[in-house]
């Protein structure tokens, strides 16, 4: 029997906005179908086995942790993560984690933080005088709707090798300008969406699980349909509230 192996990168340092809900969701959507699944925490100072996981998740973190995590990623984990991604391991990164997968992150003040370069993009923070991108977001992905809540200062711009994950319908997305949200490149996915992201977007969760199960060598057909009625109700609520927010104007907020 196949066991899906999930690696949760920096669960202590990169879990600012309930992003652990994504891991909870992946685990439960497997268990509800009788698929066995394991979760391993990968913290600061831990080495990564590129053959040890089928899916790796990293969430968002406070600004303070960004530098420390970036150092640890580059010095201890970069080669293994690159190797894992070359072998089709699925990597999902949210917000701060997403920014660190790009080529670099330029803070509002201070030196550039080099990123892993697994996604062809860069992120620049316009400084604390400029509004953060905060609010409910809806976006179109493969004809379906993705929902979540974004809260980021940095603006992300994609290069040629990365594909936008979704097209923004309501909200800011990557940079508030080009209507793109998130990025994907091979089996690497990045998004600004909290919420938590995956529980309210079950189709996208299953999209990731399908690839992770293929990596685990599972026979196709394990992802049997689930009763997603409450998931879709939560999604529909988020779409409605994002619409209301659009009509009343975005909350503009400065640190």
């Amino acid at each position, binding site marked *: 029997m196949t066991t899906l192996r999930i690696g949760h990168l920096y669960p202590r340092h990169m879990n*600012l906005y*309930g992003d652990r809900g994504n891991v909870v969701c992946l685990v439960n959507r497997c268990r509800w179908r009788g698929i066995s699944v394991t979760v391993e925490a990968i913290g600061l100072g831990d080495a990564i086995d590129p053959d040890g996981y089928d899916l790796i998740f990293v969430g968002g973190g*406070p600004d303070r942790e960004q530098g420390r995590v970036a150092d640890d990623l580059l010095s201890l984990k970069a080669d293994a993560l690159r190797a894992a991604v070359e072998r089709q391991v699925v990597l999902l990164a949210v917000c701060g984690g997403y920014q660190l997968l790009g080529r670099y992150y330029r803070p509002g003040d201070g030196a550039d933080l080099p990123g892993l370069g697994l996604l062809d993009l860069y992120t620049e923070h316009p400084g604390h005088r400029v509004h953060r991108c905060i609010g409910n977001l809806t976006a179109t992905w493969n004809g379906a709707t993705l929902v979540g*809540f974004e809260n980021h200062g940095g603006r992300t711009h994609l290069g040629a090798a990365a594909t936008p994950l979704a097209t923004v319908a309501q909200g800011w997305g990557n940079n508030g300008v080009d209507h793109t949200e998130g990025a994907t490149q091979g089996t690497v996915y990045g998004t600004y969406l909290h919420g938590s992201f995956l529980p*309210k977007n079950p189709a996208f969760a299953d999209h990731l699980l399908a690839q992770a199960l293929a990596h685990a060598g599972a026979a196709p057909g394990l992802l049997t349909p689930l009763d997603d009625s*409450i998931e879709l109700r939560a999604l529909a*609520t988020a779409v409605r*509230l994002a619409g209301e927010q659009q009509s009343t104007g975005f909350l503009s*907020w400065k*640190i």
Partner: protein
Amino acid sequence: MKPGLLQFARLAGRAARRAGVGGGTSLPGLIVERSEPALIQRLAAGLGQGVVLVSGTNGKTTTCRILADLLTAAGLHVVHNRTGSNLMRGIAAALVNTPQGELGPNAIGLFEVDEATLPEAVARLSPRLVVLLNLFRDQLDRYGEVDAIVGRWRAIIATLPVQSSLALNADDPMVAGLGSAASGTTVYFGVNDPSAGQPELEHAADFVECLACGTPYDYTVTYFGHLGHYRCPTCGWQRPPLDVECTTVRSSGLAGSQVTVQADGATVEAGIPLPGLYNVYNLLGALAALRALQLPLGGLAGTLHTLQPVFGRADRVQVGDKAIVTLLTKNPVGANQVLRALAAEPGQKALLLALNDGVADGQDVSWIWDVDYELLRGQIARVITSGRRAADMALRLKHAHWFEGDEAPSLEALPDLQHALQTSLYQLLPGQTLYVLPTYTAMLYLRDIMTRLDMTRPYWQEALR
């Protein structure tokens, strides 16, 4: 002063209440703040015993309520923003609504202050004492990250004169570290009862590292959130010695706790009718304030015994032969404390969880994924979720396995809170209790509904008691 401004503001508040426009509690303050902000300082100058400010993520309202009772018992006249309206306009309203004759040598100002408003409140009110309870992640879309608040607090504390004192929670490293910025006296309070601790830090704990050198702390005891007994393994900075020390905590679930507190060589044994370790910290904050104000701690037990919970903080309302207990849950650490207290209650429970996403709740509901709802798995007889994000709440509970198993309740999400409350009560058997867990705006709305249905008094009446 513009002639009649004070009277006008008071009348406006009264008219608003009569017209049923909310409580109208902060309207007089809003009027004064807009038309003559300097009036606040002049009114505050009439408080002969000075001003006490209480801030922190969780426990402000309850701590102020306890402290107000203790100060009143000590013979002072307390001017207090009782309704929890804790922005400048709420403080202004409390001052404006106080009859001129009540200001004087015996009057003391006691104001709970929103974390983000604290710097302005300190600058404008020149407090005699600032009580800081804790800092947890809360409403990141509004307040920003916890670090940013600590930085602003540190800057404003550094401006306090030597005559001003601080009461700080020693068990919260972010708060305790602020002591080094102060020039006046600091009173530290905390808990020294490892049996009240938990085996490890919870998911909701913010990651905390040494203020001096950046190394993650080692904990020998963890209570909740990032509260506990900590020490920096690199530079040795550690939890400061306690001036007000809780040496034993015996919890009786939602009924409250029995505590032993030592301060100044005196020992106080007291029962508080408020549940959970978080309320023990609220009590300690109030006792530390008393000590910082150099008021005697003796004879407290009687006052504490008669404490009444604030609405939404485990208060019980009897509705015929059924009861409603409301437990405000507005951020992960506070919610976990409520769930722990509930889990300690025997039997299967009936619950109503109301999740709103208003500005005062935090528009981002992601925080529910940091709450350990799994703690109540298997203890739920019936549950309804409600509020603008009723479906999000139901989805969270589904992932906490509340609806799995033969005896498990079915999933029911009813966004309309009145409908949800009435349905929950209807399903309740005689003698049973409904536990309502609302976010902040859902709690205010719940209070309105219960008032309309004649279950309880309006909160502004309580405020003006």
